[in-house]
């Protein structure tokens, strides 16, 4: 039996991946998370002096905070089992990545374990965000000073 034959048998025996159902579930779970985010945005706009443009920042912070608490209590795991990418792609996935890494390395101690590994997964996201924001702001500042565009 060569490799191709073996691969054929494996493909036959493996259960089929329910692509369509996975996509549908991810769509629904991601949609629910985003709807909650929109409701939080409206909450901040209604009761605090935030406009449509500025309410996004506290909304993101709130969503990440909620996701962190849900991860700590083990509920986010269940949501992720149903939703898959639908629960990982919105900003809540970021909170999940931070806290789950912290929980995983708790046994190695608080400094070297939790502190050292907390941002292993999410740290690159923060670094990339801060650096790209800095570069974009730098370009915009230069363009404004030259007089090409205005703020």
């Amino acid at each position: 039996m060569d490799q191709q034959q073996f691969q054929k048998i494996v493909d036959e025996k493996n259960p089929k991946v329910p692509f369509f159902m996975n996509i549908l579930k991810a769509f629904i779970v991601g949609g629910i998370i985003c709807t909650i985010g929109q409701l939080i945005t409206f909450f901040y706009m209604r009761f605090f002096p935030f406009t449509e443009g500025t309410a996004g920042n506290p909304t993101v912070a709130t969503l990440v905070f909620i996701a962190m608490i849900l991860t700590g209590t083990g509920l986010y795991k269940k949501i992720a089992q149903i939703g898959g990418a639908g629960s990982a792609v919105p900003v809540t996935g970021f909170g999940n990545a931070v806290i789950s890494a912290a929980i995983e390395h708790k046994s190695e101690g608080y400094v070297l374990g939790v502190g050292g590994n907390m941002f292993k997964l999410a740290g690159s996201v923060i670094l990339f965000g801060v650096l790209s924001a800095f570069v974009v702001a730098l370009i915009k500042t230069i363009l404004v000073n030259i007089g090409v565009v205005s703020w």
Partner: protein
Amino acid sequence: MKKSLFVFLMVLLLGACSSEKEKVIFPSDNSSSLKPIMQKQDTIYGYKSVINEEDILVAININRFDRFNKAKIEKKITKQIEKQFPEKKVLVTGDQKLMWEVETIIEKKLKQKELKKSIEKIKLLSKEET
């Protein structure tokens, strides 16, 4: 259970379809020359406007898919109004928050002094960046 879910979905679907069209100018007595400008805009489905001696505030409801051009639409309407009222400061906004603030002014029917205060507050809000 299934029946209640069905009823809930029906309410949700039907509720989403009814968009109330509201076109209000406050106070209504000096609305004559602002109305035709707003009337001919085809990218918005509603507006609420407040006018006093110095300022014109217009909060607009932009059509769902025209929202991608929000800034352009705001600029265009601002220019048209400025042409009509060269002596006034014009602020046109598609922001939902400012729409709500304008609505509270209209609901409370604010008079001179309070009106000016509220308008200043809205203008400050519209400049908010943080």
